[in-house]
């Protein structure tokens, strides 16, 4: 007859106070313009205690810097490049596969790294369906890397749908940047 309306309330609330927070740092992806054929990561500035640069050959410095960088700094330099997708597609283009080939090389070199592959979408799909589309992108990316010999247990996937656009403007160029699988190094 009549609903028992929302009764009396002890106020309360789930304070699910900060649980085990996902500490995963998130790397800033390179811009798409510069990313497709990128090679080695930009050389980070050498740690201050290091003696004069001339004393050390460039290549080993970079190696050491990567090996010794904090996860945050590592992700800032994005040694694993993001891959981009066509509208409403989860297929890896040949360009994307090329990027993943390079990422696989990096992951083989640093065999202790573990990564989270994030799937993202542009704003033109619905928020709900995009959760699944982003997951498809992340899963396909992971599967391709597995086919290159990267261990499954080193790669987790998560989809953020269209919740975290890299570029929040509403332009085609923003959409292109937002349809991506993004790598975050979570352990090294």
């Amino acid at each position, binding site marked *: 007859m009549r609903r028992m309306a929302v009764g009396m309330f002890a106020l309360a609330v*789930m304070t699910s106070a900060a649980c085990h927070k996902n500490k995963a740092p998130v790397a800033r992806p390179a811009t798409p313009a510069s990313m497709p054929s990128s090679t080695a990561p930009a050389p980070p500035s050498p740690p201050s205690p290091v003696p004069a640069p001339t004393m050390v050959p460039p290549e080993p410095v970079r190696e050491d810097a990567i090996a010794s960088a904090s996860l945050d700094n590592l992700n800032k330099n994005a040694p694993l490049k993001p891959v981009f997708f066509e509208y409403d597609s989860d297929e890896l283009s040949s360009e994307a596969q090329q990027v993943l080939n390079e990422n696989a090389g990096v992951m083989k070199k640093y065999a202790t790294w573990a990564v989270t592959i994030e799937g993202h979408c542009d704003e033109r799909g619905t928020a709900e369906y995009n959760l699944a589309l982003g997951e498809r992108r992340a899963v396909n990316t992971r599967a391709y890397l597995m086919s290159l010999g990267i261990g499954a247990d080193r790669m987790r996937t998560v989809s953020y749908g269209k919740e975290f656009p890299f570029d929040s403007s509403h332009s085609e160029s923003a959409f292109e940047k937002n349809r991506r699988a993004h790598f975050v190094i979570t352990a090294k």
Partner: protein
Amino acid sequence: MMKHLFATTVAAGLVVGLLRAQQPPPPAPTQPPPQQPTEIVTTISGEGGSAPRLVVLDFIPLSSDAETVAVARTIGQVLWDDLNYEREFSFIPRDVYSTVPRATSLETIPFDRWRELNADGLIIGTVQKGSDGLKAQLRLYNVRTRQIAYNREYTSSNARLIAHTASDELHESQRALKGVARTKITFDSDRAGERMGGTVENRGVKDIFVTDYDGENSRQITANKTLNIAPRWSPDGRSIAYTSYRRGGANIFISNIFQGTLVEVTEGNKVGENWLPAWAPDGSRVAFTSTRDGNPEVYIANRDGSGLRRLTNHPGIDISPTWSPSGTQVAFTSDRSGSPQIYIVGVDGLNLQRKTSESYCDKPTWSAPPYNEIAYASRTGPGFDVKVLDLATGQTRQLTFGEGSNESPAFAPNGRHLVFTSTRSGKTHVFTIARDGRDVRQLTKTGNNEKPDWSK
């Protein structure tokens, strides 16, 4: 003449504590306005079968202090808005009221003048401050006979709640209609402006919020510096199920908002991603999408996560489940045909039916009786519009027409309204709209506000 016998439990204000240290403590729970035993109620009708024409006056303050005067005005105006929302009555415009001598008591109402203005019914009341909050008396008069058609007293600390309660009771007693004045809307929002910690990219968190159906009385439910999205009211209005990334991946949580307890329906990252819970009509189970078997499929579990079973089985994406009002079917979105479309399946997994053949459809929501409709977001251009499918006739009607992108519809419990999001005013905001597409109202004003749901 109709007897109004039942005693009702009246909703007290929704009191949701805030979890954030910097926030003031939440107000104490409001007391439900006790009901007086009800007398005979008569219904007022309009002339010639038209909708009854009402005057809803500001209440008469029984003391002259500013607070009581303000409360008296609030009750009358909120009640006017609440009654107007269902369009069961017509109204003498408020700007005409000043041309009629003001009643200073319930005994001095100028009925002749209101009758001259063609009023059928007149609502007025008194309000005073008491030791236990506000005490309001409401009367609905038949303007022709000058007799009392409805008479109630309310006690509450919340003036808006008094008006909302009165509106629901008047709709029920006068129009046999379940109003929505005491219902709530929940949605996710980035309005708190917090950034996610530990990330290199600048990422805003999202939290769950609730408001009254009219957008007032907004409260924050979650605060854990991550993504909390797509909240859904339990049928009893005491819990909210939602998708949260607080464990890293996406998982289903149920917040029992009046007990302060939290249930993890899906556990951690061991079982794939889990999204978009939807309550069964009896509140015992939730349907949601999970990738635990390697592909997004719809599952049904008990509200504590036990008794999990898989409902769909297709290599395509199956997502956005919602229950039929009877609890015997689930509508969902699947791209098994190549693009996202709306499907219906029995809760036993049988009798799959495709319901849409459009460009891109998502987020079905199923209306309560007497309507039997599924609303959804449909791509109509660069963005989406809300459409409604009448399941009996198979006819589809469109409610929005390209003003921004219009997504994530959810029906009001009486099926007469929907809540949805639109980008028509810039950012993404929550709006309500009548089921015929009229009466669009913007509920939120700050931040981006998405994926709303309407309490039962």
